[in-house]
């Protein structure tokens, strides 16, 4: 008969799903959160797996109960033609409910204890974080400030470098609407809500690039509000940090100098390049733009081609975003791009 087939399909899909889970987690899935790297993510991932397996088991058991029940007890009559199946009055049904509820309670109790234990484990970082990073959500990019004494504090955007193996404290605020900071592979997740500062932490236990994305709908370009967390070995992180603290270098080449001048005129009202008069606060700080792997909130890789295209027509790439399409001549575009390429 075809009936068991349908439910078999459900079961099959569930099994296929778990197989796929097993297979795919080893693949290259930057946003996958069934595999995490660090003290915050790992307990969550264990819990997620546990609940997932429990869920699949429950679904399979219930589906089997339904299919088997139908298969074993089905009527001989094809309704509504002809003879009717007589009514039955069999007792014993209540036992199903009793046993079912008992099993459910056991599962729930286990889940509750595990959940609360996990929550306690991730509530506070394992040690006091030496590094505090303030992340401010903006439509549709991330402003990142490394906190410290005034000469140690600097600002960057969309790419957060952290030292491997050290917990990092995050202070999350928003400049406009609600966003949500989410780096799945590190288990870091918290909403950014106007009028309040939410605090959380994250940690990566191996070097790498971890993709994150805004996880609360925030408007037209919500889809393109991603970020990167780059975990560096501590010495490399220090090097990066020292570099970030430097102001921008004077452009040497003629075309770059021309570009710097045009940049100030065209872009300086919104963007900051430390060490130059460009000091706008609307868009990301570009002082060390070329140290970042991507532009436009991890929408495009940071290559000259993408950079040029983005400068020339940001509205074509992220329609509705806050960077206007500025009428810009070819030489100007080349100049600005060349100048930006000097911001290492």
């Amino acid at each position, binding site marked *: 008969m075809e009936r068991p087939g349908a439910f078999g399909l459900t079961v099959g899909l569930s099994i296929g799903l778990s197989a796929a889970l097993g297979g795919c987690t080893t693949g290259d899935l930057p946003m996958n959160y069934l595999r995490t790297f660090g003290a915050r993510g790992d307990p969550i991932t264990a819990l997620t797996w546990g609940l997932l397996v429990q869920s699949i088991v429950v679904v399979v058991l219930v589906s089997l109960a339904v299919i088997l029940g139908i298969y074993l007890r089905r009527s001989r009559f094809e309704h509504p033609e002809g003879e009717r199946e007589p009514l039955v009055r069999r007792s014993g049904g209540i036992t199903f409910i009793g046993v079912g509820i008992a099993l459910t309670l056991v599962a729930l109790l286990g889940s509750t204890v595990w959940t*609360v234990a996990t929550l306690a484990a991730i509530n506070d970082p394992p040690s006091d974080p030496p590094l505090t990073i303030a992340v401010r959500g903006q439509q549709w990019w991330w402003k990142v400030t490394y906190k410290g004494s005034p000469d140690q504090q600097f600002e960057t955007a969309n790419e957060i470098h952290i030292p491997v193996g050290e917990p990092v404290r995050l202070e999350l605020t928003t400049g406009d609407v609600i966003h949500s900071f989410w780096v799945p592979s590190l288990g870091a997740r918290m909403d950014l809500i106007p009028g309040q500062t939410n605090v959380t932490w994250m940690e990566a236990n191996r070097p790498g690039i971890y993709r994150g994305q805004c996880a609360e709908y925030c408007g037209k370009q919500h889809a393109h509000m991603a970020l990167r967390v780059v975990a560096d070995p501590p010495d490399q992180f220090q090097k990066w940090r020292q570099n970030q603290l430097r102001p921008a270098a004077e452009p040497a080449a003629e075309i770059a100098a021309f570009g710097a001048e045009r940049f100030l005129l065209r872009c300086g009202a919104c963007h900051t390049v430390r060490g130059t008069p460009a000091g706008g606060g609307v868009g990301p700080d570009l002082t060390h733009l070329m140290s970042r792997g991507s532009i436009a909130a991890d929408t*495009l890789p940071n290559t*000259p081609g993408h*950079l040029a295209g983005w400068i*020339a*027509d940001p509205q074509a*790439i992220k329609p509705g975003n806050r960077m206007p399409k500025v009428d810009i001549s070819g*030489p100007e575009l*080349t100049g600005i791009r060349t100048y930006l390429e000097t911001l290492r």
Partner: protein
Amino acid sequence: MRKLILTLALAAISDPAGAHAGGGRADFSWSLEPWVLASLGAAALAYGIGLARIRAEAGDRIVGGGNVAAFLAGLAVLFTALASPVDTLSDDLFSMHMVQHLLLMLVAAPLMVWSRPFLVFLWALPRSLRRSFGRFPARRGAARALNLLSHPVFVWSAFCGVFAFWHIPGPYGLALRHESVHILEHACFFASGYAFWAVVMSPGGRRRLEYGASVLYVGTAAVLSGLPGALIILTDRPFYPIHAEGAARWGLTALEDQHLAGLIMWIPAGFIYLAAICILFALWMREADRRAAAFARSMPTLAALIACAALLGGCGEGTEASSEAGGIGNVQRGAALISQFGCPACHTIPGIAGADGLVGPPLTKMGRRGYVAGVLRNTPENMTRWIRRPQAIVPGNAMPDMGISEDQARDITAYLYTLR
């Protein structure tokens, strides 16, 4: 209660060093205040005497074993709430104070209702007094007043109102500072709780409110009594500074203590209400069963009276015409490179997803055009050169040199030549 224990345990886990570290007193001692003991003792004595007299006259028909058990349990809960470490701790912790209040309102009160204390206490009085007291509720004025005071709407409002009122920081602080106000507060809780549960319980057999209405009565009170709890959870502002010091002794901040109190008020209390709702509902159904049977028996008259897939094209089709341009480079690889180098950001290129940039010229029908960049004849070689080094051919133009290798440029050209 399981939740509560769990959370207390949790609080201890999350800050194990904090407990008992505050220096001062953090004890589990009993607060055996004489007046509490005296009044509980007097109640027990009176109940005992009354019970003995009733039993002597009427056996256990009027006050059964269940009622007596309820009285003893209620007494034990009152003792726990008012004389055990619960009371001592509630000087320190707002959360423990909340437990105390909930014990009074939601546990002791219904148990006491079930024990039918007024009836039994009446019997504890000498016969003459008993008679005049016994007649009192039947007097016209008294009956009216009692009727009004025990009206479900009034009791419900009083119950919710009293509960909310005493947890406003002002009155709450006042009670903590003045023992007499504190006693009044606890009396209010117990009395309103007693009145509340008396409406939905019927130890004497006469119900003041139907079961169905009782479900609604308890349900709405549950939600309304949860809201103050919600409010003190949903803030990061401590409102009960009076407990700051005490909480510190237990390794909690005043705010954590307040949150815990709010949660106790909301969730474990909520489950007590929920249990009450479920019981009342089940009783309602049982009552319907019982009455249907009684109805069928007593009213024979009535019995006698009644003897897709096609839509997915359009995005990946551009690579089909690959054979024609095959001599130049690899078309598929070219398409991938075009995306990789960001060409779509500036150019509209048929067959490439998202390639609708308007900065540079559209590259539609590139295979049929006469010139590249307006200066070079459109040959595969020129195209490849242009793609590799646009700035060398037309210095200062807007198209950047992107470090494209010869082979890559050939592949891109091959793709572009498929566009005819």
